[in-house]
């Protein structure tokens, strides 16, 4: 039953078209489309578990002439992450926008973003990946500009330029590969790459473009303004999902398309940059005066962990330890998606109720918004990497690998990064638990506070206690 693969892309796309044509029904169309594409992902789970990893040639043409969609354990986990985060954020967004014109603009673009993400996670064709990247970038840029403020539009413009530059790097690599190997299909290209100049040049420009898109330090400069100036639901989507797309593609390219091309120096460089991202991002998050900026810099740091893990994975000798590290890597990516979207939604609640997100003036937040404060604390647990969150298991494995590969510098960097993360999370909580001078009443708002809380619970409890199956699943469905 391969219809489910196409449906996960087509359903949000149809929703986007309907929402663009009938903007007044945006909320209803949006929620329905997100739900239905989530169900399609569920259906895809069934067919994956029944038939194993599979692929489908679209249009009925052989891969090479036509385009291949493919699904395996990694892509279904990414799809599920997208579906769940998108659902929670959509519920929150259905009541977030106060101006109707803004809500009308949000839904079609939001659904296009989901369609692009689903398409990207299923694509098995290098040029098709480029098209999904473009759709993702453009919808994300347009969503960033939705706030309508000058700073937001300036950040969106910079985001657009960076996105285009990254896409062009990726496209240049695709063009090189096509001219050398005469095909765009990932598996057919993978069968021909080696340590020849063309593969190397393609690997360099494609990776550079994608690192720019996934904001690896020091190419992260565009991320904090874009993520901190967008409306809260958009920030959640950008930080949790969109930057993961670039990381996912680097992972796919390195492990599947260029396994023999990648050099030790390249891997070392990415590990060094990842370490820089951890330290710089965490330090900047600690310095931030606004909550949204803190969350954005925290994303820079968390991407650093992912790239460090990827570099360690690529340099680890084959064996059980390597497989375990791969599962840890995926688990960290999933946990960050849930934790960070929860954090941004919670910040959105605070900003809505308090009218600002200045950290120094958060006193009384715990009294006024207990559920939201709880969500921030839980998300913080996952961001620091404390037990029982999924990030704890991931980081544990990461440290273990770094020690067994004698990468002591990385061990130190990860340690300092975690301490800094603890510092910035507790700085927020310290202010939030400060007593307000005014007597305030606790506010409970189900649709406003629950999405953040559920996302944080998923990151901290579900992905901590209930994630043991991920390792065998990744191994059998690769």
């Amino acid at each position, binding site marked *: 039953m391969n219809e489910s693969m196409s449906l996960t892309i087509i359903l949000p796309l149809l929703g986007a078209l309907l929402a663009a044509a009938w903007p007044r029904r945006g909320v209803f169309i949006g929620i329905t489309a997100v739900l239905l594409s989530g169900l399609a992902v569920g259906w895809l789970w069934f067919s994956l578990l029944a038939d194993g990893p599979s692929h489908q040639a679209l249009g009925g043409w052989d891969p090479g002439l036509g385009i291949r969609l493919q699904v395996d354990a990694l892509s279904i986990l990414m799809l599920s992450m997208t579906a769940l985060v998108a659902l929670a954020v959509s519920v929150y967004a259905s009541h977030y926008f106060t101006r109707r014109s803004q809500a009308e603009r949000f839904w079609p673009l939001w659904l296009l973003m989901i369609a692009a993400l689903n398409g990207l996670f299923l694509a098995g064709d290098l040029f098709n990946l480029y098209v999904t990247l473009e759709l993702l970038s453009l*919808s994300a840029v347009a969503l960033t500009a939705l706030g309508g403020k000058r700073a937001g539009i300036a950040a969106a413009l910079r985001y657009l330029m960076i996105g285009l530059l990254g896409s062009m790097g990726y496209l240049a690599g695709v063009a090189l590969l096509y001219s050398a190997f005469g095909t765009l299909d990932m598996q057919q290209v993978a069968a021909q790459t080696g340590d020849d100049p063309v593969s190397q040049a393609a690997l360099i420009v494609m990776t550079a473009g994608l690192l720019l898109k996934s904001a690896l330090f020091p190419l992260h400069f565009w991320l904090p303004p874009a993520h901190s100036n967008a409306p809260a639901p958009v920030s959640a989507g950008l930080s949790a999902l969109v930057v993961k797309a670039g990381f996912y593609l680097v992972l796919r390219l390195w492990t599947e398309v260029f396994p023999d091309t990648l050099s030790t120096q390249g891997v070392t460089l990415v590990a060094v940059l990842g370490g820089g991202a951890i330290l710089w991002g965490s330090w900047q998050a600690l310095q931030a005066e606004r909550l949204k900026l803190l969350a954005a810099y925290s994303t820079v740091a968390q991407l650093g962990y992912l790239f460090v893990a990827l570099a360690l994975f690529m340099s680890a000798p084959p064996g059980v330890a390597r497989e375990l590290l791969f599962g840890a890597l995926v688990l960290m990516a999933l946990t960050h998606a849930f934790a960070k979207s929860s954090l941004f939604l919670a910040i959105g609640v605070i900003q809505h109720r308090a009218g600002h997100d200045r950290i120094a003036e958060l006193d009384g937040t715990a009294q006024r918004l207990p559920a939201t404060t709880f969500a921030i604390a839980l998300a913080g647990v996952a961001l620091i990497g404390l037990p029982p969150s999924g990030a704890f298991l991931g980081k544990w494995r990461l440290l273990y690998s770094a020690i067994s590969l004698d990468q002591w510098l990385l061990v130190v960097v990860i340690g300092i990064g975690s301490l800094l993360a603890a510092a910035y999370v507790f700085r927020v909580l310290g202010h939030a638990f400060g007593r307000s001078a005014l007597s305030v009443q606790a506010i409970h708002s189900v649709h406003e506070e629950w999405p953040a809380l559920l996302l944080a619970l998923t990151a901290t409890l579900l992905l901590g206690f209930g994630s043991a199956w991920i390792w065998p699943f990744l191994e059998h469905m690769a």
Partner: protein
Amino acid sequence: MKAGALLYLDLIMVILMLVLAIGALHARSLRHAVILFIVFGLVVALAWARLRAPDIALAEAAIGSGLAGALLLAALRDRRPGDDATRRAPVWQSVAVGGLVTALVVLLAWAFLEVQGGRANEPLANIVQATLHESGVSNPVTAVLLNFRAYDTLLELTVLLAALLGVMSLGPQRSPMRAAEPMAAGLIGWLIPLLILAGGYLLWVGAHAPGGAFQAGALLAAAAVLAHLGGRREFQLPGHTRLRLLAVAGCAVFTLVGVSTLLGSGVLLQLPSDWAGGLILLIELFATASIATALFLVYLGGHPPSWNSREVHPDA
């Protein structure tokens, strides 16, 4: 033409491209830069034609040079007086960017030469030729775009829609320019029907010769831009619902074709080969309308009054 003469032509084009590109980068004012860029686009279009890629040449001339030029000129008009002070980047930035670009060019040139020396092969072009008769059209470019890789084209139309929605959400359209002078207005009156005719021709001819929805849509959009510039009263955008339907129609028809093939055969966009020609024309017809609408609305620089729902108060 003899090979020698063609070589001179190529040489002139290469030099012209370089001179125009450098000129655009170092122009005295943005206005000069834009005009040089438009001319650069035309020469690039010629170069594509010379490389025997007439489809790309048409697209480059119509979109890369024509409409992009109109967009840039319109954007120039939006500047406020103070904006023109051309800010020069600090020297270290220029050097860094220059160094990076040089490294990239060397890297790409090296890889490219390796390809040329070694395994230059085009097995895919042969497969396309061999499969062409099953595609429903006889122009290989159209066969690839609308049948073999139709899913890519569907997503590309969606990219255009995302760009359109992005521009529409930035604010209301820019104020209309002053009406054209009588001479220009008369000329525009002649040009518009010709552009519409040429657009229709390109759409139809795309099935077996260079042309297709993107080029045709660009020409129709150019006609709309001219009508707008000429202040023609006959030219009005449709109302809210129809305007929105026009903008999504291309993607929507394409997606519906995809859904019906999915329901019918279980494979997305598997066009039955008897119907393929007709379905491709249907898709291209609506795609042309949507592309023209999108390009024209983007040219307006913001949403026209009828874009938003009526109850929504226009926000400044």
